[in-house]
């Protein structure tokens, strides 16, 4: 059985280690904040200039001056800090953020990431994604294994314009968890009921399986 979006977020939340500073992208990655294990304390960074982002506000607490990078109204947690965009990306570019979890259109077996542009169709801009993937210490992609029309998103080579080259460390999909290794994709976990054959059929690159995968 493929994982639901919530189950994918739960799995991704297990990547958060106590004390981490983490940047969560828009979409499924945003949901990860709802499933942080109680024994783990992480600080959420939002690249528009906030360290220590809290949950959405109650209706009475909404403040137009306090938003996240998705332009949604948010709150502070105690000990939060705000800063300029240049300072925000200095901490990103400077390697001070431990982990970024973000969505993708395509990931290659070398860890190339494409998530910002479809030539001739969609060109809204890369936002902070290029800075994040090249600056944050560890980059995890959280996405559906295939496109809605069942095309592969994990590929030998990305066909879409890149966001970063050789930047992805791990991919969590609705079917499995894969690491990007010098030998290509290595599946380290399979979702319940998902077979190796299914992964091979639905992946556009060769995959290896570790012993832990059924």
């Amino acid at each position, binding site marked *: 059985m493929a994982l639901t979006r919530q189950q994918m977020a739960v799995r991704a939340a297990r990547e958060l280690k106590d004390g981490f500073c983490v940047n969560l992208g828009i979409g499924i990655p945003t949901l990860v904040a709802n499933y942080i294990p109680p024994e783990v304390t992480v600080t959420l960074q*939002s*690249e*528009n*200039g*906030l360290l220590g982002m809290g*949950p*959405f*506000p*109650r*209706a009475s607490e*909404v*403040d*137009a*001056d*306090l*938003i*996240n990078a*998705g*332009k*949604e*109204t*948010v709150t502070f947690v105690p000990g939060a800090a*705000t*800063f*300029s*965009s*240049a300072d*925000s*990306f*200095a901490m*990103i*570019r400077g390697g001070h953020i431990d982990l970024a979890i973000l969505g993708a259109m395509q990931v290659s077996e070398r860890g*190339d990431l494409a998530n910002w*542009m479809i030539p001739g169709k969609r*060109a*809204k*801009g*890369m*936002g*902070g*994604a*290029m*800075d994040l993937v*090249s*600056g944050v210490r560890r980059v995890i992609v959280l996405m559906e294994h295939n496109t809605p029309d069942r095309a592969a998103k994990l590929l030998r080579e990305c066909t879409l*314009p*890149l*966001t*970063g*080259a*050789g930047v992805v460390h791990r991919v969590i999909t609705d079917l499995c968890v894969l690491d990007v290794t010098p030998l290509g994709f290595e599946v380290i976990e399979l979702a319940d009921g998902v077979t190796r054959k299914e992964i091979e059929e639905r992946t556009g690159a060769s995959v290896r399986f570790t012993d832990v995968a059924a």
Partner: protein
Amino acid sequence: MGLDKLQPDARAALDGIIQDGMLLAIGGFGLCGIPEALILALRDTGARNLTIASNNAGVDGWGLGLLLESHQVKKMISSYVGENIEFERQFLAGELEVEFCPQGTLAERMRAGGAGIPGFYTRTGIGTLVAEGKEQKEFGGIVYLLERGIQADVALVKAWKADLHGNLIYRRTARNFNPDAATCGKLTVAEAEMIVEPGELDPDEIHTPGIYVHRLVHNPNPEKRIEKMTTREG
């Protein structure tokens, strides 16, 4: 007096300083922390063929979206423009030029430009379309990209509090690009919700020292439109 930078209104603040073809740096992230009154006044100058460095391009009918509708913008330098339908239409129709610039690179280009640094090296964009035509250099076995600082003819920013010397304090995430844009303008105009006498702001709490700010406008009641209202129960 020499250090009193307060103008009667936004229109007066832009009087005589905006010309066709200028490069402007404008603060704000989405609609958060945009200089609302100054953007309206910029539209009313009627200046055309403007190049605007700003993280976003507003939305239809508000913020920088107003300048797109009046066809005053020749080129945007932005990281993300996805909230604006008129933008997309003009861009796809070839009426508007866009330089997509990664968000952190854009902020640093403003900061560098204001700090007298003509260019800097960054890993951001290596191996992507952003790297095309730009010089690359290796440091310690890693390849970096040369990006240029931005020096704008005019910068427009939004602060929460200001004193008459132009010292600025921003509020929450409405700070964003404003301090960076403020430094890179040859002439910087700031709009503030509160304006006080010199001495009333704690010098330790100033975000942008007044040396960067040349003109000041009081806008006590900005609309502060919210793009995505998200709340929880309780």
